[in-house]
C-alpha cells in the first residue's frame, strides 16, 4: 500500500499527504493531555468528519492545538504542509488519521 495517500499538483509544486506522519504528529502532540479532554475532543471531531464539515473540523483542531507551550510543533508543521480543502475521500483519511493518532495516546505514556 502506498504511504502517499493524496497527491495534487498546484502550480509547480506537488501537494502530498503522508497519513502516517500526520498520525505520528498527532500522537506526539496529544500524549500529555488528559484522557477526558481528549475523548471529548475526539467525539467533537468525529461529528464534523461525519458531516464532511472541513471548516469546523479544522476550527476545532486548530483551537485545540493552539498551545505554544505544548508539543504540537510537529503537527503544526504537518498541517502547514497540507492544509487545503480536500475532496471528501481524501479528507476522510486525513481526518481519521489524526483522530486515530489522538486515540493512541489514551492511558498516558504506557502505550508508546
Amino acid at each position, binding site marked *: *500500500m502506498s504511504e502517499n*495517500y493524496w497527491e495534487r499538483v498546484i502550480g509547480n509544486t506537488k501537494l502530498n499527504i503522508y497519513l502516517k506522519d500526520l498520525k505520528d504528529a498527532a500522537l506526539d502532540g496529544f500524549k500529555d493531555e488528559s484522557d477526558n479532554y481528549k475523548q471529548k475532543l475526539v*467525539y467533537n471531531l*468525529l461529528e464534523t468528519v461525519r458531516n464532511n464539515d472541513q471548516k469546523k473540523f479544522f476550527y476545532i483542531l486548530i483551537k485545540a492545538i493552539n498551545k505554544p507551550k505544548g508539543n504540537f510543533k510537529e503537527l503544526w508543521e504537518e498541517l502547514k504542509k497540507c492544509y487545503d480543502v480536500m475532496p471528501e475521500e481524501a479528507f476522510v*483519511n486525513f481526518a481519521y488519521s489524526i483522530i486515530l493518532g489522538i486515540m493512541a495516546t*489514551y*492511558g498516558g505514556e504506557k502505550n508508546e
Partner: protein
Amino acid sequence: MRAIQGEVLQDNENMQNQLAFTGNWFIDAGILGFVNLMEEVYGWDLNELQNRINKEPEKVYYGYFPFAYLYKLLGRTQEVNPELIKKLDKELKDKIFKDSQELFDFVWFSFICALFKDSWIKNKFKLIYHDDAYNNKKKLKKQFNYKNTQIYLQKIGEREKLITTIQNEHQDEIKEILKSKKGLTKFEYEDLEKLINYDGDVSKELKRSIELLKEKNFDIMNFLENEWENNVVKQQKLTKKESLFYRIPIDNSFYKNFLFFNLKKGNLEQKDSFYNMIRFNLNEEEILKRMDKTVNKFLLSEKEFSNINYTKLSTEPLKKQFEYLFVYLVCFIYAFENYRNMGNVLFYSNDLGFSYRINNRMKLYKKKLEDKRNSNLIFRITWQQIINSLVEYKSSWSLENMYIISYQTLDNETQENIEYIGIPKLQASIILDDKIRESLNNIIQFRSKNFENRFCWLLEEFIKGKSLYPLILNHVNLVINNETNLSYYSAIYSLITEANILYFRSENEKPNSSIFSENYFNNYKGLVQDIKEDVRRTSYCASLIKIISNDEDKKSRIARELISALKAKDKNLFLNILLKNLNESKELASNDSFNRWLMEKIIKNNVCFEIYGLILVMNLIGGRKNE
C-alpha cells in the same frame, strides 16, 4: 559424421510426428479426442500412442485410426466383436504395405467392412415389400442395384408372400401378438421381429407358419452374409454401380457434411472420401478446404463470419503444419466426456499431457460423480479432481492456462448451454498452497437474490475468478441474524486472499510500475507468503476488537451498524461508527497493535478497506469460537 546426420534427421522426423497441442483450442480438443479414441479402442495410453506414431505413423493414421473411428461410431448403436481388434493388430504388425492407399484399402475391406457386416445385413434385411425396391416409375432404386438384385428381391418377395398369407389366415391372433388395435395396414420390420420372437401360446397352424417365416428369414440372412463376405470383404471387387448397394450404414449428426456420411454415396466413395480426409487431400474434397461450421459446430458458418477478412478461412496454410489435421478435427467430440446432469465436459490447458491426465482422472470419478444427485456436488468433485491433479503435477503445469469447456447439445441446429470457464494462473498458483486451499475448500451458506438460503463452494468461486467478498458479506449477515454459524477460517482466508490479490493488481496497474519494475517479473511468487503473513497478523489484531465491550448485545449492535455501512460502501460512516465506539474503550483505542492495524488496513487502504472492515465485524459477532 553421416551417422550423426542420420540421427539428427530422424530426430527431426520424430519431432514432426510428436503429438502436441497447438494453442488453438478446437484443434487441440481434436488431438485429445484422437488420443482418447485410440485409448478407448486399443487401450493405448498417450505414451504408447506416441511411440507407435514415432515408429510407424502411417499404420496408426491409415490403419488403426479409421477402424477405431468407425468402430466407435458403430459401438454406439450395437455391440461389436472385440476379436476383430486383436486380429487387426496382428495383421497390421506382420504385413508390409507399399503405400498408405494400399494399407488403407486393406483395412477398409478386410476389417471395416467386416465390422459392419451385421449392421449392413440388418439394413438390407429390413426391406419387407418387394415393390419398395422400385420407385414410382417402376424403376429399380439405385441402392438396390447390383449383380444379384434379382435373387435378393425374389427372396424378399417370397417372404412377403408368406407374411401376407399369415396375416390373412391368422388376423385375430396377429392383432393380439402385435398389440395393434386397428387392423394392420402395413406390416413393418418391427412387426416382423415381434412376430418371430413371440413366445406366448399360438395356434398350431400359426406356429408352423412362424417356423416357415423364420426359415425364410434365415435364408435371406445367409444369402446377404455370403454376398457381403464374398463380394466385399474377401474379393473387394464391387463395381462402381454396385457401390451404393454395399454402402456402409453410418451416420453422424456432428459431421454431416463429410461425404462418407452422405446417404447417396456408395461404399467406394465412402472409402475414398475417408482416405482423402485422413490424407488432407483438399483438392479432392470441398469440405477439406475450409475451416468453418461444417467441420466444427463451435465455429461460425462462412456467412456468419462478420469480418470479410476471415471468411473462407482456408485450410491450405495449415496443411504444412498439420499433416493429419482432419483426423483430429473429426475426433473433436471425443475430447468431451458426458456427465449426467452436467453435459459434455472437457478440461483444457495448453499442454496435451496435462490435459490428458486431468481428463482421465475426471473420467475415473465419473461413476462417483453420476451417483450424486446434487449437481452442485458433481461440480465440486470435478473441480476437486482438477485441483488434486494440479497439486500433484505442480512443476509441469505452472505456466499453463486452464479452461473447462462444456456443452449440453451440439449439432447442426442447436448449440445449447455452451460454457467456457477459464482458471486464471494467479488463482491456480494460490491454491497450490495447502493451507489456503484447505481453508477455501469449504461450503458456506448465503442468501440468494430470491431470498432462499443457498450453499456455495468457495474454492469454485475462487477458481472462476469471482469475488468472494460479496458472498462472505452475505454469509456474515446471516450469522448476525442467527441463521447460520460463522465459517471463520474459510471466511478470513477468502477475504485476505482477495485483499492481497487486489493490492497486487493495484500495484501493477500504477502508472509508474513499468514492465521493467521488479514487481512485474517477480509476479506472484511472494503473494502466497503475503497472504499467510496477513492472515496471521489480521487474525490477531482484528480479534482485539472483542474487548471493545463486555456486553454481547452492544457488540452485536455495533456489528449491525458496521455491516450496514459496509453494504453502503461508506468508508466515512464505517470509521465514524467504529471510532465513536472505540472512543469509549480507552484500552482498545490505545492498543498499539490494534491502532496500527486499523491505520494501515482501513484508513490508509484505498483498495479494499471493506474487506478488513468485514473481518472486524466477524470478530465482533464471535470470531473463532463458533468454528
